[in-house]
């Protein structure tokens, strides 16, 4: 992770930028090991847009910033007034180089534009919409500066074209029953659909969060092999379910 962070600071170095010896896959932002398997490049490619959708989208988007936030890079969150810093720091995010612009009003384009000059990773909230012409300008600038954007919710909704789409396809809570227990840990299945080298569907199974609020790889050897595959879309509501694991699609 240390190497990756020094790599980020180098991105602004013209030599690094123009050198043909630096392969695109080396210019990535680090991602924690639990999620690295989703990325062919081992991390978030610089200058790319990643769309994150599904039930646990906000948790997943936050989890993707853990390594970056710990590496001395800056993260900017636009239009995410709801992001709970307690839960996020339990996930492992370091907030010392993290800023929020909760309400960019009608200046979304200008704000993201300005932010790109200073931060490496930008999180964009679900209600953010860029003017269409700004979207194109920003993509060009992202490529140039190496800033990456993660959108919580559909990227096209904010007029950006995603390079990668991550979707939480299954989410299952443990710990809560009918009138007793509480939300304890959530097992999520993440699917990746991308372009180019990422065009193969990839899946990753993680606890997001585990019972301590952290991100953790699911140890599949201890799991019933077909648990997720066999999960019904929705289980009938029965008060008798008790402490059983509840399924949700």
């Amino acid at each position: 992770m240390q190497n990756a962070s020094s790599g980020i600071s180098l991105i602004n170095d013209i030599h690094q930028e123009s050198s043909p010896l630096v392969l695109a896959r080396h210019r990535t932002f680090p991602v924690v090991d639990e999620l690295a398997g989703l990325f062919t490049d081992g991390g978030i490619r610089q200058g790319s847009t990643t769309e994150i959708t599904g039930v646990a989208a906000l948790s997943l988007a936050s989890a993707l910033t853990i390594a970056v936030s710990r590496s001395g890079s800056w993260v900017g969150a636009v239009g995410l007034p709801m992001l709970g810093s307690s839960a996020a720091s339990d996930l492992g995010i370091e907030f010392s180089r993290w800023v929020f612009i909760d309400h960019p009003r009608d200046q979304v384009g200008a704000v993201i534009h300005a932010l790109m000059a200073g931060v490496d990773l930008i999180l964009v909230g679900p209600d953010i919409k860029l003017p269409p012409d700004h979207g194109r300008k920003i993509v060009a600038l992202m490529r140039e500066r190496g800033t990456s954007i993660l959108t919580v919710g559909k990227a096209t909704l904010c007029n950006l074209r995603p390079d990668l789409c991550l979707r939480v396809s299954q989410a299952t809570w443990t710990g809560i029953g009918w009138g007793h227990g509480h939300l304890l840990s959530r097992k999520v299945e993440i699917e990746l659909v991308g372009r180019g080298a990422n065009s193969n569907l990839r899946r990753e199974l993680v606890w997001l969060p585990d019972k301590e609020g952290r991100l953790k790889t699911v140890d599949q050897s201890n799991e019933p092999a077909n648990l997720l595959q066999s999960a019904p879309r929705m289980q009938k509501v029965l008060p008798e379910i008790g402490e059983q694991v509840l399924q949700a699609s």
Partner: protein
Amino acid sequence: MVLTNTRTLVLIIPHWRVIAAGATHDHLAAVVKKDRVVDVTPAGAEHGITPGTRRREAQKLCADLKIIEDDEERSIRKFNSVVASLESVTPRIEIATGGWCSFPTRGPSRYFGGDQALARIVAERTLKALSAVLKTTEVPSVMQPRIGVADSRFAAVLAATFTSLSRVQVVVPEGSATFLAPFPVDVLASKYSPLLEAKELVDVFRRLGLKTLEDIGALPSEELLARFGSPGLLAQQLAQGIDGRAPLLHSISDVVLEESEIDPPADHVETAVFVAKALADRIHRHLAINGSACVRILIEVESEHGEVSSRLWRHEHQFTSADITDRVRWQLEGWYQSENPPTGPLSSVRLTVDETVPDSGQQLGFWGEKTVNDERAIRSFVRIQGLLGPDSVTVVQRGGGRRLTDIEQRVPLAGTRFDPDQVITLPESTAAPWPGRLPAPLPIAVLPQAQQVEVTDGNGRRIGVSGRGQIEEDPVRIRSDSLGSHLIIGWGGPWLLDEKWWDPATKSRQARFQFLLADGTSHLCVIENGKWWLEASYE
């Protein structure tokens, strides 16, 4: 901040405004702007008329005086023809105003064999062009061009204005501070000074017994800054032969360029100016976002036949968009009246910001700047604060408390003594020291404002809680406008919260519940006084 100096040649033609107005030295003429004389011929000056004299007073002093209204456009347009004679010397001529231009000497000086030789060539060519304007072979000495070369622009201006008989003065490299030392502080308030409205400042300097630039240069800069703010510091830098404001460090992508086609191509200067105005507005907005101001701009206009008029313009303080538009008009007027006017209609306008300085309205100094990364980041946040207001950029700071909104705290970035390397200590959410705290994990989406929801039982009746927080019926459905209507497939709670039970005024009894819904989402709701609120979600 690194202060870089550029060795500069400054050319000043005295009495340019009367020359541009068509007067020669023996005319009795004065140029007047807003009821005051701004320039007067030497013959007029003999009657005691000086710049600043009121119009009526001037007429009283000399009944035959011809009064000409000032016209900046005319002044610059005519000056263009003089500047054109120097274009073979350097392409980087910056026109400040009529009768006053400058350029960096580095390249041309090497080419022509030193500053002295360069200055002589410039003097010769300007004189030739000037005699064409005045339609005389004998340009009177008081109107002959004056040239100064020095390490800073301000020093070069003073070298040009206070020249000896030769009308050329070259200050040796590294010698600018020494050259400036004996000048009285008043020069800081002259029309050639980059200091804005400096008259008061100079008055204070004099009252403090600071008489010369040397006195100003010798003061501790912190004290000048503390007492007079940035104008004080700028005054000192000028006095020391440093061009005060350093250009912003900028990368290639920061270059601001706006261009536009003129469609259909236009024969009228005003049409092109109109197009340029929109570009100038865009540039101005763009720079404002970046917290910078333009002091030098390159204006290029192309005709349909491929002829290009290209010129650099400099502003002593900063260009407004109206200033830029004016320069475009002047440049075009000059082009049409030059020896090589465009043969086809004008087809495109391009404006390139060539040099910017930090907009002095913004300061970063009080932030604990750490790395280059941090400095860059902080600068971009300042821009955003400029766009959206000082409270718009927030950072995380957490406090204790049991309500989620107590735990989650954002503070405006500007309000904190910001130090990114300082570890922000966050309370361990799992180590709840008091009852009623939420069980971990905490919800990641905390609504800034709770939303009212409806929670109903199997028969569609609203559910309440008993005094002990016990729920009366099993909750089966949750509904709200933003959420829609959802089946509850799992729930937990209550977690009771008797906030500040010792204070009857703020006493509030709340019970929290977690709901897992059929669509896979899970939420944290609170019931208070019989009303349900959606507080947070585990998204």
